[in-house]
């Protein structure tokens, strides 16, 4: 894997994180391909012997199981000006680490593993921290690398927050 490509992917992930921190969602959507699949399954605690497919079975409950249209629909809420629980604004920091870039069978696509720590704080002292892994496919386009698939594995069983007004 050439170092330049790894550097390019890292910078792309950091740029994406910065756009999310700054709520620049239009530009963030610009980093997604038309056929994006954005998935964060809800994972129950089960015994090791239990082979229920909880991650890849798309018919099960998921925090996110979205295509581009679905994501845009969610984001339209913020454009209305009446998303009361976003005003005053939530303060976000996304930290992205453990980036691994792996070639795929498709020449224009790379598999990218990363970990995230997303911190939220709002109003007086509401705060929470979401930590987990991501498994992405990034595709090379004329406008740089774009995200075409993301699987997010959050490490909480009970989401220790009242909502998920955040993209990971």
């Amino acid at each position, binding site marked *: 894997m050439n170092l330049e490509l790894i550097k390019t992917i890292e910078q792309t992930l950091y740029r994406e994180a910065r756009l999310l921190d700054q709520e620049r969602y239009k530009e963030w959507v610009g980093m997604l391909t038309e056929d994006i699949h954005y998935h964060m399954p809800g994972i129950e605690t089960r015994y090791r012997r239990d082979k229920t497919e909880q991650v890849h079975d798309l018919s*099960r409950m998921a925090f996110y199981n979205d295509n581009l249209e679905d994501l845009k629909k969610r984001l339209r809420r913020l454009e209305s000006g009446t998303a009361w629980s976003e005003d005053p604004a939530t303060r976000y920091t996304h930290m992205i680490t453990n980036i691994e870039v792996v070639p795929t069978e498709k020449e224009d696509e790379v598999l990218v593993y990363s970990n995230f720590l997303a911190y939220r704080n709002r109003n007086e002292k509401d705060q929470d921290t979401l930590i987990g892994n991501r498994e992405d496919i990034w595709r090379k386009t004329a406008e740089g690398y774009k995200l075409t698939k993301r699987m997010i594995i959050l490490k909480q069983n009970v*989401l220790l927050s009242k909502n*998920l007004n955040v993209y990971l």
Partner: protein
Amino acid sequence: MKIEKFKDNGRYDSYMNLDEGWLDRRVFWEQSIYEREMEQIFARCWLFVAHDSQVPNPGDFLTTYMGEDGVIVCRQKDNSVKVFLNSCPHRGNKVSFADAGNTRRFVCNYHGWGFGTDGALMGMHEEYCYDAGDIDKSQWGLKQVAKVGNYKGLIFATFDEEAPSLENYLGDFRWYLDMLLDNEEGGTELIGGCIKSVIGANWKFGVENFIGDAYHAGWTHDSGARAMNNGQPFPAIDMKNSYHASVNGHGWEFGTEGMGDLVLLGRPKVLEYYNKIRPKMAERLGEMRSKIFGSVASASIFPNVSFLPGISTFRQWMPKGPTQFELRTWVIVNKNMPDDIKEEITKGVMQTFGPGGAFEMDDGENWENCTLTNRGVVTRREKLHYRSGISRRIEHPELPGIVYQGQYNDANQRNMYQRWLDLMHAESWKDVPEQYSPRLNGKETMGPKAGFKAG
């Protein structure tokens, strides 16, 4: 200014007046009131514990809570369901740490006491440590609930031997529940998995919101409505042809326009599907119920289950102290729907009423602050206003229950708190007064004529 100190003597008449329409905020705050709720309400009422579809096969189990008591719900070989405490009678440890699964036995990690899927004690590690006469195994199984019941796929349990039958507990509310549970041949199922989240609010705020608070929707959820429905605001409410209906503390608020909630789900294919089956629905449930289903509506089963018929979110508010609850969210669909409609509904629910949903995100913050402002000792003594629509009670020939006209109303909330008050004061179920005399006692709940006022 007279400072009135809070003293909990088990009487709460001075903390609400439902004829005048107000509540004292301390019912959402005080630890001693919360603990009494656990005894008087959660240890006595029928509580939802599972849907049939979550435990279809013998040995299938899930873990949940009845109040703050952890329980296991397990399907038996004879297809019945048993519900017992998830706590070993030896030292008290949990015997299952999974949310769900399939098993032949539950074994405690501490000393290896093993229990059958019926909760009976089968044996233990190093059994020779017990001499003859030390233990009668038949007496030391996992503690069973008093009764288990099932209404059209919803499994309920109660810790109280004296509780009325589930049929009487739900009473005429079954007429309304049939719209959710029996609007199509084959009944319902829950989509696999469960989304759990934590909200720092009193559990009653969630229940009362779904039991009757259509009023908040147009304002709180303006942004959600516009997101899901092409920039359109929340649908207009017809105050003449919309209602509150309450039975035994349960409540359903609804319009009769047939499509409001279905539109807000933001999935046109689902609206199309229901419009297609609506004539059949009218044959099953009557014209009136087929027009109510899909309208702007929300409902709660006392004490802590809520749902949106049409939007298809089904949820339970698990109390975790006076200022916190755990919200469990499921998606309820008709078993006989094609897979693509089930998928559309599942996606729609998680985009509206999951933790990342366009509607839900604005609710949690409201309820948290409705609760936490009461940290202030002066604030906490102030009243809250619950008088909206207090003079709009009507007798409706087709709608059973205590019915109020106009969906913007606090009627169901007042009736829920009346039930709360009655249970908090009652020594036993015999002391819980009837709020209303049922139309459906011993009668069929289905069909076009069910629920009509006699004569």
